[in-house]
């Protein structure tokens, strides 16, 4: 049995898309255990689920709006209902590839029992703004280049928020998700590593929607930075213990990926501030030669930094055969400024509202949904073609 858990809140617009994608998964329907955790007062989403004709049984678990209102809390409410040996988490706007559960199963069966989690690739297909296109490049670099390399080196993975496949027993053993952490995925990845478990990646994609407007993007990034800060603080309570549990490589990965990410984004404006300070005095005194030399130094550092950041995106897009979409990476300096803004507001929000979960609106991009449908039809066509070739499909006779 394979459990599929999705936590939904104000997702009436995309609930049909999600459940259709789950129904399309290439897995015996009688072995699928679909659990949807919905906030009890979210009547819209519940009505949308009830109004739908399901092809597989779906368990709806209402989550009482008591104490916190976070995704990990909803997932924790749903976890005791999971009957599967394996459990996968999907977000509301997710469209996983049909082969995903089989690929995950294959990965678990071919590995030792210390493989606790496998992460599928996430890919955003929203093209409405430069931010969403940049998001696609970023995800390509992260899920196609960065995470597979970390997994190959046996280092702990900061998991993505969706399409994580777990051994259910191990997930329960490590205590499930932390409901107070707003990036419960990254925290869980580190916790699994601390308990001596490994995480891996699988060659299957889940398509998602990216935020298109600056406001929505900032809200999401602020939450991510806040969560990484929480994760860093939680695991760095006893650095000695962490070092012993993760080893030197794991400890350094944690520092660079979780802590360093936020710190670099916070320090970045100081660099730009320094650049302007370097330039203004020589220019004001008419010493243009000195200005050029100093500008050269600063630009060399800036170009190196931005290129290093953008190179992951280029490599990821290249791997996905989408090199024509690398143009957006020219905007890396602007993106970095926005990241800095998000990091600073996250640091402030962590003091005022540490457990506040800024909800990202989904169902905004209609083109990506249409593309998703086309992709599903193409997949179906391919599948029928395979069946026909194998002689498993009876010829359709028209009278």
């Amino acid at each position, binding site marked *: 049995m394979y459990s599929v858990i999705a936590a939904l809140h104000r997702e009436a617009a995309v609930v049909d898309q999600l459940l259709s994608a789950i129904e399309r998964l290439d897995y015996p329907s009688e072995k699928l255990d679909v659990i949807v955790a919905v906030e009890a007062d979210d009547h819209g989403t519940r009505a949308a689920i009830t109004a739908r004709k399901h092809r597989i049984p779906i368990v709806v678990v209402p989550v009482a709006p*008591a104490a916190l209102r976070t995704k990990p809390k909803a997932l924790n409410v749903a976890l005791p209902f999971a009957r599967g040996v394996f459990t996968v988490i999907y977000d509301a706007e997710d469209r996983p590839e049909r082969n995903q559960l089989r690929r995950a199963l294959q990965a678990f069966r071919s590995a030792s029992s210390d493989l606790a989690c496998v992460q599928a690739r996430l890919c955003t297909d929203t093209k409405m703004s430069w931010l969403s296109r940049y998001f696609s490049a970023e995800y390509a670099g992260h899920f196609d280049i960065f995470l597979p390399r970390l997994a190959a080196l046996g280092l702990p993975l900061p998991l993505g928020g969706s399409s994580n496949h777990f051994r259910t027993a191990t997930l329960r053993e490590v205590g499930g998700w932390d*409901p107070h952490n707003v990036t419960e995925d990254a925290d869980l990845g580190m916790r699994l590593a601390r308990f001596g478990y490994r995480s891996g990646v699988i060659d299957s994609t889940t398509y998602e929607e990216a935020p298109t407007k600056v406001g929505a993007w900032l809200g999401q990034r602020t939450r991510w930075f806040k969560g990484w800060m929480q994760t860093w*603080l939680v695991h760095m309570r006893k650095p000695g213990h962490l070092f012993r549990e993760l080893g030197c490589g794991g400890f350094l990965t944690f520092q660079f990926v979780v802590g360093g990410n936020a710190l670099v984004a916070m320090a970045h404006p100081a660099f730009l*501030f320094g650049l302007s300070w370097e330039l203004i*005095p020589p220019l004001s005194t008419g010493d243009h030669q000195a200005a050029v030399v100093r500008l050269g130094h600063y630009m060399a550092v800036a170009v190196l930094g931005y290129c290093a950041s953008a190179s992951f995106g280029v490599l990821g897009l290249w791997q996905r055969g989408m090199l024509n979409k690398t143009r957006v990476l020219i905007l890396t300096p602007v993106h970095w400024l926005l990241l800095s803004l998000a990091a600073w507001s996250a640091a402030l929000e962590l003091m005022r509202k540490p457990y506040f979960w800024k909800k990202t609106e989904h169902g905004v991009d209609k083109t990506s949904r249409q593309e998703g449908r086309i992709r599903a039809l193409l997949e179906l066509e391919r599948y029928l073609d395979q069946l026909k070739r194998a002689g498993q499909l009876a010829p359709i006779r028209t009278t």
Partner: protein
Amino acid sequence: MKGGVERRAVALDSSIENVLIEAGVRAAEQLKSSRPKLSAATLNKLTNAIPLLFGVLAFVAMCTTSGMNRAFCNCGSANSIPDLGRRALGGNVFEHKSKSVLSRRIG
């Protein structure tokens, strides 16, 4: 008879609600109660201020690099940002005062 059924229905409904609320609370407290050291719920306000402090320190550290100091040098106002700060806080006045105290003592 009808009243009894209604009462039972209401009682059942409210008990389900209580169970749900209880499950929600338990889910929210799960990690906090079983492994408090691994839960973000046990981070206090002061700890939550550490990232902001680190950010400010990183910012200040970058602002006081040699390049920035040179920039200030060129302005002719001070030798470095710390110098500027010292001057703003009356560091020079303090130096003058201590000199005069010393000279008085020596004298």
